[in-house]
């Protein structure tokens, strides 16, 4: 292959899988319309961008990163101290030193509590036997994710090509199951009795699992969090 062919091939490849004028802006990912969802399902660029965004929003710790993330978050707070000996970059004096010590100490405590109670690292052990075939395959969730202004009436995700059915479960933060169900379509409409449990301020998680005709797991969404924002 000549260098020119390499450059040309690279340009063509990047043009083919790069963004187009029809691509969905990142700002729309939290509330995709039917048309936008249809575009995402046939656009490799948007599909990849949606995957990255979902990983950011899911904010789930991996097995080996909890301590590093805690250190970085603490370091971020530390660098905000205008007179701190530990400061690396003086440019990071956003708001002056007001109440820095209290905030930094508070943050340290909150981070410590958060990681010990809420954000505990998963144990490293053997994977469940029924997910060994395609552990990395993911279901891409459309809604609900994050803070919502109204209680969601349905759960939606992108279809998985190998799925015969989807199992869906909604949990409280402590892991208590409040509803579970199945669907052959990539969405499920929730019973009214479940929707009324989505009280403002109450954080919930949900997960969808795709199964093939034999019932084996072919993909998972990972845990998605949402809550209805309380009105003041």
């Amino acid at each position: 292959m000549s260098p020119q062919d390499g450059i040309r091939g690279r340009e063509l490849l990047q043009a083919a899988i790069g963004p187009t004028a029809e691509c969905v802006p990142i700002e729309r990912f939290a509330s995709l319309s039917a048309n936008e969802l249809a575009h995402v399902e046939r656009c490799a660029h948007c599909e990849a961008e949606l995957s990255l965004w979902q990983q950011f929003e899911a904010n789930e710790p991996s097995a080996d990163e909890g301590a590093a993330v805690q250190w970085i978050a603490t370091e971020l707070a530390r660098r905000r101290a205008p007179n701190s000996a530990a400061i690396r970059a003086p440019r990071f004096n956003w708001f002056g030193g007001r109440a820095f010590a209290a905030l930094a100490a508070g943050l340290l405590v909150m981070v410590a509590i958060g990681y010990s109670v809420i954000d505990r690292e998963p144990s490293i052990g053997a994977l469940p036997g029924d997910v060994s075939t395609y552990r990395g395959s993911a279901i891409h969730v459309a809604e609900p994710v994050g803070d919502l202004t109204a209680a969601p009436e349905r759960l939606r995700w992108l279809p998985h090509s190998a799925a015969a059915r989807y199992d869906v479960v909604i949990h409280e933060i402590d892991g208590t199951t409040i509803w579970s169900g199945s669907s052959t379509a990539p969405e499920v409409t929730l019973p009214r009795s479940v929707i009324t449990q989505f009280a403002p301020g109450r954080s919930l998680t949900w997960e969808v699992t795709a199964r093939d005709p034999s019932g084996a797991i072919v993909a998972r969404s990972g845990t998605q969090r949402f809550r209805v924002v309380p009105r003041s």
Partner: protein
Amino acid sequence: MQPADLADDELAAECLKRSGADRAPYLEELFRRHYAQVARWCYRFTNDRDAAADLAQDVFLKAHRSFDSFRGQAKFSTWLYSIARHEGINRTQRKGPAMADEELLADVAASDEGPDEAAQSGQRGRRLRELLFATLDRTERTVFTLHYGKELPLETITRMLALDNASGAKAYIVSARRKLARASGRIKARGELL
């Protein structure tokens, strides 16, 4: 009501209504809530604590400087994500291109260079997009797009997508290339172009 009592969108709304020192405690609280989220994202990009702290610092610095561009139409976390994504990908790409797959590039570049090259390029792009969707599963396609489209290293993609199979993104890119090579072979056998 104290900043800590407000939800993210309420904090963002308060920030939009205020300026200067009046805005600071609300913006500070809003940022603080996303430290761990941005830290995790940056760590996955860099796989290095110090580099991730520097990247996260730049993300929040940029968010602070450009907060007036936030209109409240998207979720604050999504707006923050757009900054983190931009900074992370830029920093990764500045380290050098990840793409070095001569066989694949040669296949894509191969063409009859006719008088209407632009139209041919457009058609080839369309054919390639169709081939990706007809040949690859979603994870393979996403890894392929991030590696060849965004030029992200496979190790970075493994961390960004939280792929926990033994060889991470590499397994998906190998599988994708194998499938594409087979499909490309069938297309060539018919005397057509990729």
